[in-house]
């Protein structure tokens, strides 16, 4: 990830994100926010890498690493469940009938 190559990746990824979301109907704003919330749950991978390289003799490092992985895993799992529940309602129109 040297210098300008990194900058170009940043620029292209930013445009991609912008492009992917534009023209989204209002009804999908909330699910999409939740979905993008899930995608940044990939921070879990980074947390795993840093915990994996933490000094096993240093409790401070282990605690911080544990917190990082815990939070990352929660972000990913929670983000997925919530998004999936919201989007499950968009599946195949409306077979469910309202029940009081």
């Amino acid at each position, binding site marked *: *990830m040297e210098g300008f190559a990194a900058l170009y*990746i940043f620029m292209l990824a930013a445009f991609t994100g912008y492009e992917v979301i534009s023209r989204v109907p209002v009804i999908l704003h909330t699910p999409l*926010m*939740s979905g993008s919330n899930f995608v940044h749950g990939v921070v*879990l991978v*980074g947390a795993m890498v840093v915990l994996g390289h933490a000094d096993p003799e240093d409790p401070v490092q282990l605690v911080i690493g544990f917190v990082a992985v815990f939070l990352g895993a929660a972000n990913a799992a929670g983000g997925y469940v919530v998004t999936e529940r919201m989007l499950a309602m968009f599946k195949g129109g409306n077979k469910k009938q309202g029940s009081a």
Partner: protein
Amino acid sequence: MANWFINASYFVVAVVFIIGLKAMSSPVTARKGIVWAGYAMVAATVVTFFTPGLGNVGLMVLAIVAGGSVAWWSGKTVKMTDMPQMVAIYNGMGGGAAAAIAALEFARGEVHGPVVATLAVAGALIGSIAFSGSCIAYAKLQGIMKNAFRLPQQNLVNIVMAALTALLGLVIIISDVPSSAMIILFFVFALALGVILTCPIGGADMPVVISLLNAFTGLAVGLEGYVLANPALIVAGTVVGAAGTLLTQLMAKAMNRPITNVIFTPISGAAAGEGEAIEGTMKEFSALDAASVMRYASKVVIVPGYGMAVAGAQHKVWEMAQLLEEGGVEVAFAIHPVAGRMPGHMNVLLAEAGVPYDKIFDLEEINAEFPQVDVALVIGANDVVNPVARTDKTSPIYGMPILNVDMAHNVIVVKRGKGAGYSGIENALFYKDNCRMLYGSAQEAIGEVITHVKALES
């Protein structure tokens, strides 16, 4: 070999994330999108275990299982109406994870050179703000924290705090080996900054804030991705950062609240006192009156609000709508962009109750029709139908797009009590001549209306 395999996997994961997000922007493919992204996340996690030299695996698995299962369980059990605060808290956790990554890299002394240090510090700052800010947002939406809390000279305090935090960050960047005390102080300030920025913001603006913090977390994840030289984090984080920023703008536009206004001049209880005095009285209506007016109307438009969702009345409302339709009444649902707590939240809640999409119209589609509508039935909505947003320049919500229900021949408002809306602003609609109030919880009131409509049929 292992490295090549891992990097190739990350590449595929990043591509699938982008395709998944793209799929999520259309109702037809949305569900597939999240499922694909889910598989990609599992793949990324599994592959990471093969990273050469990875230690502390036991602790790692424990953390994943603990964090994952807590969040999985809470996400499965939460009510649909409480979704926004769950999104907020999961987002905050992601920001916290990004900040913790930076903290650990500093603790390990693995941050070398001013460029990497700058990226790490920036990611830590943004991640910390996202973490503590999201916790406050969660507390507000969950009702743990009731009121907007404004310090005297709030904007000045914000700027001073931000400047101090930035200064601390700068010291860390330029010092070769930053002291632990300095790093701890930096994180304390960054977390406090998130709290003081979010505290004064009123509940009505919270969706925009959550969306903004979501973009923050994405950015923080992207920045830490650079520190760790991990392309999956860089691409996913940056894409979410950009997408989240755009979503925030779209939401702010839907509410006619520029994002700078949301942060620096929140609608608060103090501002709500302003605005012209409203004349007239509220006129009450019985469930029988409401039933007969709607049963013999040719077109009824239902405007649901968060109050309906909290009462869990959407099923009842849909049952009533179906009854009316059987009697030949044309029924439509009109949804304000920010009905519920976030844009699109109400659509999700109505979909859950079984209302078909072709009966749901958004503000632009339906506003022109209100003068031809016989009955507008407002259930638990308030600020989004307040005509002062159109007429009273001194009102804090002036200029916000509203549903013009006051132009319908008759307006029936189902409301629990006589109080003001979420923003605390008095609603001029309730005092209009064509408006009638049907008091009671949405669940009971609509239940009674259904009984009367049925009686009229026989």
